């Protein structure tokens, strides 16, 4: 039977003591003076022997009336009977953010308390369809079945945030009429509907944490923060075995530490640790990173280009560390005239420089327009540019820069994942190579092309961020990812790329084909998540369940009303006017 979670019932239940109090008040003994007490009935004397305390039983009429009131309250709750198999599914949403493991010394974590509570709920009605959703940065469906399951299936509490509102929305998408139970460590931040239960066993605790780490090829940036109300003495250890750096963090202080990477750290990666006594959440005191090593882009300039063009290119490439210092025989980027590319350069990105024929190049007074939103044109300044180009030339692909009707720069993305850029520019009569436009454009170009090498774009990611893995050529049959815990997953390919969302912090090994084996480090640090002062206990039970279509409910309201009526008649027949008590 259920329906007793209805607000009407709870209200009625709350009113029951009031009703009983009113009843007692109405039935209270009124003092009355009589002339001859000896003429009235003697009370029934308790036996002189036997139990010392004789229980005081209220009169049977009272018990009968109290029972009638209780039955009426139960009837008002619209109770109903439902077969277990007809119960609406239970969507169990477990917050898997790292703060769920926070516990004072010897105490129980919110995750553990939530698991115990959920087990009780599940035992109450079983078997039942249970939808399990792990609420991390992105809500994830774990399973949808009616079998008993271990809570380990939700995975570790390691996400850097939890999207509980998204998880509730996902649950509603999966089962419209589900009863939803959210297990977390804080009070709800959005209004709860009647069919949502909320269980939080979080406690306000002081914490010290690493809230941000970054790693370049040379240095490590680590930000430590004291998220408590008292000063904390901590030790930052960037490399195991080293003494590290001691310092004291004032309450609320956030301190940045920049540490040069040693050769060993560059080779193996960085494991930074923030030590503090009595820390309730060890997970946010450790982070593993990999150096962001990104080799410079190799290039080659076609000899067919005019000298002025070659000179402008060499000048800008040599000034940009993202490009190799010297031309390469296996270039990743080739600068050439259109149609003059060597076969060996077929697997490289190309910049085709269209040199206008003499007399065809013109400089117009039309304004230059740059296509916004493209990474290649980001930060490009076209002020004071004198762009001499062939106005009749039609560039292939997507035009990024144009002047009037003249197309000046376009990009073509080839099927093999390479790019072709087409530049319509007379180097002799133009000045972009002498303006900020030129180095910024090549900086953007290097940045894009280096990221589009096989493998991942970066070496370090935050948990919950989308990781794109580009395949090498030839495209492998599958991309395999080995998680920090040793679990291996195969990723589906979408146009030479695969995507996945790492939630667990640690080192992921990725095999994306020959020449595309790499690793990424994932961290789950987040100042908001580490701030355990926001944790709070909160409990709410669903007060109403949706009427699932097809779930037969036997309404018991009439049964309770009939029972109350029968008792009322019995009461009248026993204690009505003119009857003896």
């Amino acid at each position, binding site marked *: 039977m259920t329906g007793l979670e209805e607000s009407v019932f709870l209200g009625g239940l709350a009113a029951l003591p009031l009703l009983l109090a009113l009843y007692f008040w109405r*039935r209270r003994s009124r003092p*009355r003076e*009589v*002339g*001859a007490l000896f*003429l009235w009935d003697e009370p029934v004397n308790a036996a002189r022997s036997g139990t010392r305390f004789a229980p005081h039983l209220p*009169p049977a009429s009272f018990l009968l009336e109290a029972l009638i009131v209780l039955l009426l309250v139960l009837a008002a709750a619209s109770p109903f009977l439902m077969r277990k198999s007809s119960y609406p599914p239970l969507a169990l949403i477990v917050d898997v953010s790292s703060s769920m493991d926070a516990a004072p010394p010897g105490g129980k974590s919110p995750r553990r308390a939530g698991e115990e509570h959920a087990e009780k709920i599940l035992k109450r009605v079983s078997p039942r369809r249970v939808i399990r959703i792990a609420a991390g940065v992105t809500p994830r469906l774990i399973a949808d079945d009616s079998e008993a399951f271990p809570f380990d299936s939700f995975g570790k509490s390691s996400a850097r945030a939890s999207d509980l509102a998204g998880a509730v929305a996902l649950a509603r998408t999966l089962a419209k009429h589900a009863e939803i139970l959210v297990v977390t460590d804080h009070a709800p931040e959005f209004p709860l509907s009647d069919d949502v239960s909320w269980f939080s066993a979080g406690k306000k605790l002081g914490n010290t944490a690493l809230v941000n780490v970054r790693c370049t090829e040379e240095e490590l940036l680590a930000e430590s923060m004291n998220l408590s109300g008292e000063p904390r003495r901590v030790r930052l250890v960037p490399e195991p075995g080293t003494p590290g750096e001691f310092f004291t963090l004032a309450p609320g202080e956030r301190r940045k530490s920049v540490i040069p990477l040693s050769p060993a750290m560059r080779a193996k990666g960085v494991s930074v640790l923030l030590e503090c006594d009595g820390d309730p959440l060890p997970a946010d005191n450790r982070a593993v990173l990999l150096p962001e090593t990104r080799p410079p882009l190799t290039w080659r300039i076609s000899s067919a280009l005019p000298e002025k063009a070659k000179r402008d290119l060499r000048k800008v490439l040599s000034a940009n560390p993202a490009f190799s210092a010297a031309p390469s025989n296996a270039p990743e980027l080739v600068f050439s005239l259109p149609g003059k590319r060597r076969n060996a350069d077929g697997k490289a990105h190309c910049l085709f420089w269209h040199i206008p024929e003499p007399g065809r190049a013109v400089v117009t007074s039309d304004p230059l327009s740059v296509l916004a939103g493209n990474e290649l044109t980001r930060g490009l300044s076209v002020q004071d540019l004198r762009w001499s180009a062939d106005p009749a030339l039609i560039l292939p692909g997507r035009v990024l820069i144009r002047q009037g009707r003249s197309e000046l720069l376009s990009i073509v993305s080839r099927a093999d994942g390479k790019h072709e850029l087409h530049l319509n520019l007379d180097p002799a009569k133009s000045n972009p190579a002498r303006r900020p436009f030129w180095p910024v454009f090549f900086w953007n170009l290097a940045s894009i092309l280096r990221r589009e090498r096989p493998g991942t774009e970066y070496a370090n990611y935050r948990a919950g961020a989308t990781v794109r893995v580009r395949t090498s050529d030839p495209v492998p049959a599958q991309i395999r990812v080995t998680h920090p815990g040793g679990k291996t997953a195969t990723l589906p390919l979408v146009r030479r790329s695969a995507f996945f969302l790492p939630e667990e912090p640690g080192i992921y090994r990725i095999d994306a084909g020959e020449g595309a084996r790499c690793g990424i480090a994932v961290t789950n640090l987040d100042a908001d998540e580490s701030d355990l002062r926001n944790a709070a206990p909160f409990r709410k039970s669903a007060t109403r369940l949706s009427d699932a279509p097809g779930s037969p409910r036997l309404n018991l309201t009439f049964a309770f009303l009939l029972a109350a009526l029968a008792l009322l008649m019995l009461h009248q027949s026993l204690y009505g006017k*003119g009857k*003896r008590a």
Partner: protein
Amino acid sequence: MNGLLARTLHQALARASGVELASPRTVSGIEGRRVGRRSGNALEFAEYRDYRPGDDPRRLDWGVYARTGQLTVKLYSEEVDPRCDLLLDHSASMAAGSEAKAPAAFALCALLAQAAVNGGFSLAVWHAGETLTREPVPGHPGEWSGISFDAARNPGELLSESALRFQSRGIRIVVSDFLWAEEPGAFLRRIADGAMRVALVEVLSREDLSPSGSGNALLRDPESGEVRELEVTEGVISRYRQRLEAHRALWERAAAGYGALRISMCAEELLARWDLSELFRCGILK
């Protein structure tokens, strides 16, 4: 004296106008049970009757015996001093349960006192409160002192403990509700001892006669302070009525045994109509 008492007293005294207490005219040597101590100051022949054991042999008419051989007693009508003792119950039960009972008893007592004065009686008024006290101005009910009904003791207790001396050979009238649990014989014995006539005027309220109400009640005896919690139902009230009737019957029998008159009056009806026909019928008033 509160307003209600004063008002009822005024009504009672108005009703007493032209009413006298009746003088008892009886014969000496009544019924052989008790012998009168004194013969009175005026003797008038009344009748003869056969001698019965216990009769004063001095009253035998030897002449009749000589003529007939029958022992015959000569009876005289005995003219006694017109004396009256009025005893008013001031116990707290007189004020319990009804506002009319105490004023009615007080007013009735005042009416009888005024009737006694009207009849030329030597009047003594006794207040049975915490102690038995004699009223210094019995002939002026409006000036009676200490009129309150809150005593914790009933007249039965007081009479058994005190060495009270009523006027001899007089009329003794007790105005009370007679609602005490002790056996009435001892009380009547003290009252009737040396009395020419005893009248018990029972004043009960309607609430005493037929209690109303229902539900839980915390009954309290104002004299003893004893409390009793009961759920008042029809059945409980019915049993109360039965016990009250048994109690009154006990007093009726005891009063008959001592030759006492017993008159019962309802306080509310008395105050409403001042109907004294019962007192006239019994010969208390004339």
